[in-house]
């Protein structure tokens, strides 16, 4: 084998493991879902090719539209709050002014290590309207207990759980990005007479933009796929969280409760499309802002 040929082979060889996994674990299931979404398998009558019927049905399905609408609302409210918190923590840690910085950093990050299923269970207990600690406390104070699991509070209660889980994770990404900013920039800014706030605003924030964008993208994907938390709180608030509360939950119950595997594939496919569009929109707006 000549050196040139060997060099020509090197690229594909390096990419091969990724491509294999990508094909097997991503494209193949995606293709299979697309294939499934063109059929309808009934309990009586078997499997029938229905073309795009499932898609027409899904686009006019109020349960799906409400589910997507709900996660969109969740995204708009929860994500900015969470990222702002993560940013504040990251800046505070990076400022070097905090005592016990390591302990605090770990403390904020630890909730991410708690599996979301466990977290949702714990919060479900804390939210309890009778014997939960918040309820007990307000009972002792003679106040009416806040009903965190009611229709009006539920989205906020879910947002709280998700924020608690992911602030630390996002903080670590932002904090790591802050650590890569060259020290000279700070020195130069200080020479120009900038204080800590000014440095944060004019030096750190612009340098953080790629990292912020990354966390934002993760959050788009995470929000639209909201599943574990509502699925678990459903057990204790079945009258508030329906089987179509979020789009992902809807796809799951279609497949495993209603045996409507094909329609579930359609819903998942459309949900994936929504996420792609939302991610693209986020990227586009961010890029436009970056280039004046």
């Amino acid at each position: 084998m000549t050196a040139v040929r060997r060099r020509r082979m090197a690229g594909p060889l390096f990419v091969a493991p990724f491509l294999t996994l990508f094909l097997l674990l991503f494209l193949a299931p995606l293709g299979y879902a697309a294939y499934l979404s063109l059929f309808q398998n009934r309990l009586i009558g078997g499997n029938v090719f229905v073309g795009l019927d499932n898609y027409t049905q899904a686009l006019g399905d109020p349960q799906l539209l409400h589910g997507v609408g709900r996660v969109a609302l969740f995204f708009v409210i929860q994500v900015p709050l969470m990222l702002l918190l993560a940013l504040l923590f990251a800046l505070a840690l990076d400022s070097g002014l905090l005592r016990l910085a390591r302990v605090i950093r770990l403390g904020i990050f630890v909730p991410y290590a708690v599996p979301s299923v466990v977290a949702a269970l714990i919060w479900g207990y804390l939210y309890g309207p009778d014997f939960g600690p918040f309820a007990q406390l307000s009972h002792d104070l003679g106040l009416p207990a806040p009903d965190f699991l009611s229709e009006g509070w539920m989205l906020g209660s879910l947002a709280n759980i998700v924020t608690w889980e992911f602030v630390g994770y996002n903080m670590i990404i932002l904090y790591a990005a802050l650590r890569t900013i060259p020290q000279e920039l700070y020195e130069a800014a200080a020479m120009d007479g900038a204080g800590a706030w000014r440095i944060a605003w004019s030096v750190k924030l612009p340098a953080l933009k790629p990292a912020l964008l990354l966390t934002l993208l993760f959050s788009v994907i995470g929000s639209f796929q909201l599943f574990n938390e509502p699925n678990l709180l459903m057990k204790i608030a079945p009258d508030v969280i329906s089987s179509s509360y979020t789009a992902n939950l809807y796809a799951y119950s279609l497949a495993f409760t209603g045996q409507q595997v094909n329609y579930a594939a359609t819903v998942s496919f459309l949900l994936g499309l929504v996420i792609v569009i939302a991610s693209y929109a986020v990227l586009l707006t961010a890029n436009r802002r970056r280039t004046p």
Partner: protein
Amino acid sequence: MPNFASASTPSPMSRRLFLSTTGALSLGAALTACGGGDSGGSSAAAKPVGQADIDKAMTTPTELTFWTWVPNIAKEVALFEKKYPAVKVKVVNAGQGTPQYTKLRTALKAGSGAPDMVQIEYQAIPTFTITNSLLDLRPYGASALKSTFVDWTWGQVSGSDGEIWAIPQDTGPMGMLYRKDIFDRHGIDVPTTWDEFAAAARRLHKADPDVYLTNLAANQVAAWHGLLWQAGAKPYATSGKSDITISVDDAVSQKLGAYWGGLAKEGVIGVEPDFTDSWYAALNKGKYATWITAAWGPVFLSGSAKATAGKWRAAPLPQWDTAKPSSGNWGGSTTAVIRSTKNPIAAAMFAQFLNSDPASAKMFATEQFFFPATKALLTDTEFVGDTPSFYGGQKVNQVFADVSSTVNSSFQWPPFLDQAATDWTETVGKSLADHTDTVRALGSWQSRLTTYAKNQGFTVKGS
């Protein structure tokens, strides 16, 4: 994927092909020898398998796989293996209830990985017979067991053409557990009719606003079905392969809806989801004076409300008509054989032995504290004479054994129970929790189920 169609609409031909290709030749011959009068194709009884074939199968080294979530079932399995040393049974816990069914469904669709025998609850049997996934146990002598089991359980495992789809394992005839101390404190007599029950609910809550007579869980469709069952409702009736009658909002259902919806709206009963932290705490702290439950309830409660030991007693359910006492069932399981098994004889013999062998059946009652499905155990003085201190020395098993004989035997389940359950929670259950019109919610349940059934290709009658 290409198997989906053939799996859900089998013909005698495909079954014959299937059996011969899986190597069960002698059985295939027996099954296809069913004669010409068979119009439906899936119903005619096959000829019994001869004793010689059974003896041969039970002495040939075989490994069977059994999916079950019964804890420590190895003890019962060992009895079987002792009797048939050639047959080894591998016990697999594939999850409890729905998670197991989901895995089973996936394995069946994939065409591999399904077990030989499976634990299945009564209400889930039609869900698997509609896809032709269970083996009719008649050719293996299961008919002879009919008199062994409580009559209504036999109705639950039998198909519309007399097929025997599974062997009963345990049951859950419904009764009422109540707090004697709370009843005594407020001078309440144990209600024997639902009218007395409603009056007691109002009186108790008025006397002590922190206490409710009971909790009707807004997520517990099984309890609702049990109460429907007691009231003599026939919410689902199937005839033929694809005809179904759905009547979850008929007169009987509306009577129940008005009754429970009314009590919930008045705020004199609780409606919180059961088997949650908050519910356990409520039972321990005396928020509810009764638990309307099933025969497995007494043991369950004594383990989860230890703080209240000695204060509980058991009684039958209040009645709609005291002249004709009746009850429903909530829970309980069976053992079924998956049609795709390569060892149908050994698997069928296992399902029968496990649940009808006197030693094995008794072990379920004494080791796992299951409420028996065999008539012999329900009159066994050792079992019904038990006097647990949690219930103040009352013969609780006797109470439920008496209830068991009053369970209505004609109740049927739909072939899509999971969907019925989800729809119930989102309509009727929600109306209870939200204190809105339960009778109207029954109508929504009916229309959601009807739409679903039609979409699935059923011919829906009477709606």
